């Protein structure tokens, strides 16, 4: 996978993850054009796009578009399932996820993504394992908080 973009129906970027080294300028250009292209497509059209020299797989969940760029020989359907699995993970973590969850906790969304996809490849397909890893790290947060609070009390 070359990159993944999340953007709203209004074209606002919500999350971006690039797995290929590109300059900021290129990233911006690609994002702008791709968002336009995808938003212009009608709901009944197919989820795959041949765009420039890339293959784009996108899917809309409520107000959010999830959009992945893959190479030509990659499997489009499985990429669609990657998106779906990521949404499932977000859903499970946030408890029926909505766009606002991602806006306000976008770093969490990134952590989950990094646990699921690493360097553009699927790392862990088990929902349980991904969330376990995230919760472990999150737990630390609470442990530290508690210790900080304790130290403040003392």
């Amino acid at each position, binding site marked *: 996978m070359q990159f993944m973009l999340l953007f709203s129906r209004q074209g606002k970027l919500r999350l971006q993850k690039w797995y290929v080294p590109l300059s900021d300028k290129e990233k911006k250009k690609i994002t702008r054009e791709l968002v336009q292209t995808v938003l212009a497509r009608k709901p009944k059209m197919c989820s795959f796009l041949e765009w420039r*020299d890339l293959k784009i797989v996108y899917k809309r969940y409520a107000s959010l578009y999830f959009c992945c760029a893959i190479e030509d020989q990659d499997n489009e359907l499985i990429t*669609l399932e990657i998106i779906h699995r990521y949404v499932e993970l977000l859903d499970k973590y946030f408890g029926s996820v909505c766009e606002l969850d991602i806006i306000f906790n976008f770093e969490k969304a990134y952590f989950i993504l990094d*646990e699921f996809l690493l360097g553009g490849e699927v790392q862990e397909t*088990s929902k349980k394992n991904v969330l376990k890893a995230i919760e472990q790290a999150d737990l630390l947060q609470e442990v530290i908080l508690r210790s900080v609070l304790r130290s403040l009390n003392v």
Partner: protein
Amino acid sequence: AGGRSGRSLTPWPGQQEKLIQQELTSLKATVSAPTTTLRLMKECMVRLIYCEMLGYESSFGYIHAIKLAQQGNLLEKRVGYLAVSLFLHENHELLLLLVNTVVKDLQSTNLVEVCMALTVVSQIFPREMIPAVLPLIEDKLQHSKEIIRRKAVQALYKFYLIAPNQVQHIHDKFRKALCDRDAGVMAASLHIYLQMIKENSSGYKDLTGSFVTILKQVVGGKLPIDFNYHSVPAPWLQIQLLRILGLLGKDDPRTSELMYDVLDESLRRAEINHNITYAILFECVQTIYTIYPKSELLEKAAKCIGKFVLSPKINLKYLGLKALTYVIQQDPNLALQHQMTIIECLDHPDPIIKRETLELLYRITNGQNVIVIVQKMLDYLKESKEEYAIINLVGKIAELWFIQTMNAVFSVGGDVVHPDIPNNFLRLLAEGFDDRKEDDQLRMYAVQSYLALLEEEDALYPQKFLQVMSWVLGEYSSLVTDVDPEVILTKLHSLLKKTVITSETKMWIMAAVTKIASHASCSKIVDKLIQEFSNSLDTCMRQYAFELKHLCEDKALMRNLLPFDGSCNDMVVDASLSFLDGFVAEGLGRGAAPYKPHHQRQEEKLSQEKALNFEPYGLSFVSSVSSSGVTGRQSPTGLSFGSDTSGNSAETGHKETNTLKLEGVRRLWGKEGYLPKKENKVGKENEPQTVSCGSLLAGQMGDPPALRSDQVASLSEEDKEKQQLASTLFIGLGSNAGVSLMGKADTATQKFKRKSKINETQSSEEASDFQDSAASDFGPLLDTVPINMEDCEGNIRTRLRKASLCSSDIVEDNLAFETPQSLKKSGPDDRLPDIRLSQSSLFADSNIEIFQPSRNAQSESASKTPLVPCLSEELEELTHSEVVELCQSDALALYLCKVWTDDSLLLIVFVSNKTTSALNAVNLVFEEAEHFQSTTYQFPVIEAQNVERCQKRVWMDKICTQGILSGSVNYQSEMETRLEFSITLSLVDFIRPMEMTTEDFGKLWLSLSNDVKQNIKMSSSQDSLSATLSTLQQKLKLHIVDIIGNEGILACQLLPSVPCLLHCRTHSGMLALWFRSPCSALPDGLLYQCQKVMEES
């Protein structure tokens, strides 16, 4: 708490810009303040990430992200690492500062820290620092926690991608990872294996068994339930394994053998109607078609593709088309089964589906359906706005259509095609486009298609086509590596032996043989060929054979002389012929006269006749060209040289491509597309033989034609159309049985053709109209026979005119040499002067009407005749010049008036008797000069104070910008007196407007071949195009056909009827002129006149 950062940013989109700028300023202050705690810094980083995502510059925070990863506690570090991985790319210099932190964290006892470090390493890491962390990561492969092992494998995969050499020594550790007890670690290792097998499949054949076993276990549900996805066992793992198996089994029957079972099982198991099963099925089908085929599996896979194609789900349909595209070359019948679906997809509202369908059609394109497919592609192209798609598709169209259509054009048009067409075609092929790879593809395609054509034993191709073939084979056959040059040589050799091949074509073939021989090592065929043709009766062939023989003896020279793809290299030609200096010096030494250029000789001749020449020299426009701000002007001599020395040898062929380079694709690609008119003509002439040409026209004419309802009444109109389209698209594909799936495929095709012929006749009517008009335009000129001459002479004159009009000076010179000799032998003496004149004459004066002094005039003059003459009423109405005085003496004055009638230039010479007595025996003689015939007008008597006039009709025969007609008048008064005069005739005198419509202009434009382009500066007074054009219209009598924006088209004709078209375009103070005419010298002459007019105004 940091996660709330976005809240303040989003709710007011209108103010967002301002808010974020404020936010960034405060962030900048905060991160650089020394008092900022790490906790606050973490908060800042989250906000910065957000700002950057919105597209704001936040590079000032990058270094602080690294610091945070370095110094923070776990939570802060986590955000620090995240920020680093989002901000930086793997070549960013700041990344080096992260290495120490990573090394430290990899050694940490805290699992979470180790995980974070591995995660960041797997995403971005500086290549040159890999050795610093590699041992640590290798250690992690033995870690007790599977998550650590998995991430370590993933980090190694990253290293393998960016620096494969650095991880070579740990390949056996990859194997260990493959056999890891945890499926996640094993799955991660597959990424590495897929990559390695992609690069070198033969090195990993021994692992095939393991991969098959793993896949069997996965498919059999032996993996922990955690790995299930929507109750399908580990789909990602399955797909990864299927891809690996495909790569391993490709072209390898033995390895493929091992995987047939598991593939079969995969197909069987994937039954649930869910996207994920289709994903696996798709991969499975692809693998089955990639590996060594097994018919049983192929059958099942084909059925599977059918499920995709017929699925109502658009995503699956798309993949079905993709799969079809993939398998079509192996199994064209599959496309036939689904042709109706494909036709439907061709008009699908989703452009992506359409495009994939075109991709599919592209793969099945053959000689019979190319036209329809290309038409479909063009239709798509018209709707498409996306640049990449357009580039891609245009490349394909060019490849398919260009070569094949040109093949059709050549084989159908045969030797009647205009020589420019093959020349242009070859030039396009040689010069190529921007992309080297595509060029070579196109050339290879051409070579292959020609080899296929030559394969047919008894096929007879037109000479021109054979010439094109041999040139392409000579130049580019070495691009095709899988064909032995010996095979090509054999084919060329057998061509050479055919009697139907003209000797010109043989030259082309020999040139090709020479070129191929220069790439190949010694060849028996070449030797044989040299032997055979060294004794040829054809001197050219003998010459070639000898050249080839000598070149073969010196391979180095040969390679030097004939570099590969050298057709576009500019050749340095010593135009001054300095290598002949010695020869010239020798000649001069022996007393030969020094060479004088043509214009010098002409001038000398003129100056011999007149003491002082006050007229500008006729041919001096070269200097005036340079004075008028010339940019990028091609030398007219270069042009005519290039087109006249048609390629008798490869070398001349080279020159052609060089000299004509300036003219681009335009001639083939007119404004409305590819020169369709010309093809029409070709199609018309050979209608019965060609199917393809006809249907091309049909395609161009518009929609797929409707079937006649009485033929297939049962089908709805729409379906019929589709069926027709299908039969046209899938024609020539697969077996006949496949075609008959369509039921009435054959008849449908027939009808399609018939309909197309109707279109064709229409268009050919147009074409023939055009041709007729063209013929009538050119006709009189070529066939003009001087009325007052005998037939024999007339013929000769016609011949000469043809030569001088249609071709170059060279040819004419030759003719001029030959004719007088042959005539001297045959013709009676009294004909000689005429003939000698006509060969070198500048002006034709074939129709001389002598106006005898009218009796009426005499009586009128008796009453009152003005001394300054005026024209008769009928002539007065025509456009004419002022009456100017030619010369005068005490007794007599000569006046001239030019009358530009529609069909000629009339010279009216008034002879005015100024004396009070009658002048007797006035003889007006137009001198027998180089360019003119002598004519004598005799006026027995001119009454006192009277004016007589004579009328001479002049046409321009050989084009020049200016010519002089001199003459004299003598009369008897007291003594015999002689008065001389000269009349300057300009090219403009013979130019008449030519009225036509824009459409006719376009047709004619495309049919003309001699062109001249020139940019000239416009003065400030002529800043508007229309003003400039009307100047040209007035001064040069050009007809303005149309003005569109900054472009204008004008047409005129040289009397009697040689058309010349002019295309003008203004841009930034320049006027770009582009002339075209069937006569090569006319554009040059007109250009000169235009420049003169522009300078004057």
